[in-house]
C-alpha cells in the first residue's frame, strides 16, 4: 500500500466540484461571515498570514481586520474573549493553531464555555466555535503533533467534530458556527491538501450523524478524522484478500451517532476502532466500550483498537512513524480478527 488513493466518496448532489480540505474550511468561514454579521474569526496569524497552513487566506481582504483579527499569542485570553463575545450575541470562531495548545485553554473551554449554559440553568448560551488541529507524521515532534480530541469530548457541554473530508469539514463547520453550544472542530493538519467533492450549492451537515464511508460485510472499521483514509486503504487491501470491510466515520464524537456505529457492528459482527489519539483512555476506548455494551450479542470476536502509541510523539521520522496506526497495521489486525491467514 502506498499513498491513499480514495480521498472522498462522490456525493449525490447535482453539480459538484473538487476542492481541498483547506479550501472547504475557508469557504465555510467565508460563507458564514457573509451570512451573519455576528460571526468573526480571531486567532494568531489568521489575517494577512492566513494561518501557517494558509487555510484562511483571503478572508481578511474580504471581511476586514475587525472581523478577522490577528491576536496576541494568548490562547487562553483569545478563547476567553471569544466566550464573552459568544455569551453576548456574537458567534466567534477562535483559531487555536495547533491542537497541542488546547492545553493552554482548558479553563476557558472546560470550566467556562462548557458549563455556562448548565450553571446558569439555561439562561446563558455560548455559541463559540474553536477550530484546531490534530495529527502526527508532520515531523513536528511532541508539542505540535498530539491528537487531544478525547480530552474535550470528555467534558459535558462541549461538542467535538472530527471531519475527514472536505465535504464533511465544510458542512460541519458551518453547522458548528450556527450551533448555540461551544463546538471544537479538529482538523488533521496533514489533510489540508486532501481533495474531495463538495456541492456547488450551499449545504450544512448535522452534528451527530455518522456516515458509512464504505459498505462491507465482514468487519466494521470505525475510524475518525484522517484515520478514515487509513481505514479505507486497509479496506481496499482487505478486499483483495477476500475480506469485506465496512468503514464508519462518526464525524462528530459529541454528539455521537451510536445507532449507525452499533448498527454496522450488529451487521458485521466484528469491529476495529481506528483513532489517532493515544490508546489509553482515548476516543478509541470509548467507541470500543460503546460497541461492547450495545452490540455484545452480535460480536463474533473481541473489539480491537488501532490507536497512537502511549508515548510522546517523537521527532525522528523512523520513530514517529511507529506511533500511529497505518493501513498495513489495520489490515493485519482485521485479517487476524476475521480469522483468515
Amino acid at each position: 500500500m502506498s499513498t491513499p488513493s480514495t480521498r472522498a466518496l462522490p456525493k449525490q448532489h447535482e453539480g459538484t466540484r473538487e476542492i481541498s480540505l483547506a479550501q472547504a474550511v475557508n469557504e465555510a468561514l467565508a460563507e458564514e461571515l457573509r451570512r451573519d454579521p455576528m460571526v468573526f474569526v480571531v486567532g494568531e496569524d489568521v489575517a494577512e498570514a492566513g494561518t501557517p497552513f494558509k487555510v484562511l487566506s483571503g478572508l481578511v481582504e474580504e471581511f476586514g481586520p475587525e472581523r478577522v483579527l490577528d491576536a496576541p499569542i494568548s490562547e487562553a485570553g483569545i478563547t476567553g474573549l471569544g466566550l464573552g463575545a459568544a455569551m453576548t450575541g456574537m458567534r466567534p470562531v477562535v483559531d487555536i493553531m495547533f491542537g497541542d495548545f488546547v492545553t493552554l485553554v482548558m479553563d476557558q473551554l472546560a470550566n467556562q464555555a462548557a458549563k455556562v449554559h448548565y450553571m446558569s440553568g439555561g439562561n446563558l448560551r455560548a455559541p463559540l466555535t474553536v477550530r484546531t488541529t490534530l495529527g502526527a507524521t508532520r515531523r513536528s515532534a511532541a508539542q505540535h503533533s498530539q491528537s487531544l480530541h478525547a480530552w474535550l469530548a470528555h467534558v459535558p457541554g462541549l461538542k467535538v467534530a472530527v471531519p475527514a473530508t472536505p465535504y464533511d469539514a465544510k458542512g460541519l463547520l458551518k453547522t458548528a458556527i450556527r450551533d448555540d453550544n461551544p463546538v471544537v472542530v479538529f482538523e488533521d493538519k496533514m489533510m489540508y491538501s486532501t481533495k474531495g467533492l463538495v456541492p456547488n450549492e450551499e449545504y450544512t451537515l448535522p452534528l451527530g450523524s455518522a456516515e458509512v464511508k464504505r459498505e462491507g460485510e465482514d468487519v466494521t472499521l470505525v475510524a475518525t478524522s484522517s484515520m478514515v483514509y487509513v481505514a479505507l486503504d486497509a479496506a481496499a487491501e482487505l478486499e483483495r484478500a477476500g475480506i469485506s470491510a465496512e468503514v464508519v466515520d462518526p464525524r462528530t464524537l459529541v454528539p455521537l451517532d451510536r445507532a449507525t456505529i452499533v448498527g454496522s457492528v450488529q451487521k458485521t459482527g466484528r469491529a476495529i476502532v481506528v483513532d489517532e489519539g493515544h490508546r489509553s483512555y482515548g476516543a478509541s476506548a470509548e467507541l470500543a466500550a460503546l460497541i461492547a455494551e450495545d452490540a455484545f450479542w452480535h460480536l463474533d470476536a473481541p473489539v480491537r483498537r488501532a490507536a497512537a502509541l502511549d508515548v510522546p510523539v517523537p521527532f525522528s521520522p523512523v520513530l514517529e512513524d511507529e506511533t500511529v496506526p497505518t493501513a498495513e497495521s489495520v489490515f493485519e489486525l482485521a485479517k487476524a480478527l476475521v480469522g483468515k491467514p
Partner: protein
Amino acid sequence: MATEPTTTPQTLTSELALQMYEQMRRIRSFEERVNDLYRSAKMPGLAHLYIGEEAVAVGVCSALHRDDYITSTHRGHGHCLAKGASIERMFCELLGKEAGYCHGKGGSMHIADHEHGNLGANAIVGGSTGIATGAAFSAKSRRTGQVAVCFFGEGALGQGVLYEVMNMASLWQLPVIYVCEQNFYNEYTHYSETTAGEVAARPAAFGIPEEEVDGQDVRAVFDAACRAVERARSGGGPAFLTCATYRFHGHHVGDIDRGYYRSKDEEEQWRRRDPVEILAAWLVDRGIADRSKLERVDENLAAEIAAAADAALEAPYPDPREVNEHVYA
C-alpha cells in the same frame, strides 16, 4: 498612572445617595442571613461573604446602566444584588431550589442574571476576565454603547489570563473596566507574600489608566467608576480601578479562626471603617437623612430579607429529572 479627568455623567444626588445606602444595607443584611443559614445547617455547601466590601459593588454598579455587563467572583453576592438581582431568587439559588437564578444548578458561586447584564459569578479566580473582555469586545463590535465591568479580587493578579486580556483590551480599546477589589488577602495569605511590585504598575504596563480608590467610601468609588465608565462608553478604552477594602468575615463562612493569618486588631481597625456607616454618617451630616429615617430603611430591609429567606426555605427543590437538562442549548 494619572487619569484624565472627564465629565462625570451622573452626579450624586440625594436620592441616589439614599439608594446606595439602601443597596449596601440590603447586601449587608442578605449576607448576615446567609451566614445564619450556613451556621444553622440550612444551606448546603458554603458561601464567601461580601460583608465589608459593599461600597465597591454598589459604587461601581450605580455608575452602570441596566444592560451594561458585569462578571463576578466567588465572593459575588454583592455584585449580583448591586446589579439588580432579586433577593428571593438569590436565596433560592443558594439553597439549591428550583426558583433560583440557575434553577439550583449554580449555587452561591455561579449566580448569573442575564436580565441585568450579569454574566455570572465564577469559582475560578480570574476565570471571568476573558468573558468580561469578550463582552466588551462584543459591545464595541455591535456598537451598542454598553460597557463591561470585570470584578476580581487582588488574588487574581496571580493569574496570567488577566494580563492576556488586559493586553487585548488596551490594543483594541475595549470598553471594559477592571475592578480590583483589594481586600489584602488571597484566601488565607496576605497579598504582600504573593504579589511582587506595585499593583498600579500592572495596568500601567499595558497603557491602561489606573485609579486607586478608597473602597470603603461609596461616593469615591462611584466617582471613579463614573469617570472610567464614561471614558469607556465614549470610546476611550479600558480602565483599571483598585479599590482598597476588607472582608470583615473570613474567606468563607466556615473560616472563623483567622488568627493565624490576620490579627484581631487589624480586623477591628477595618471594622471602624464600615462602608455602610461611612455613608450613613455622610447622609446625616449633609441633612439628607436623619438616623430615624435610616433606621426605617433598615427595618424595612430586615422584613424584606426575612420574608424572602422564609419563602426560599419553603420553596420546592428541582425535580431530580432536571439533572440532564441544560447540558446543551
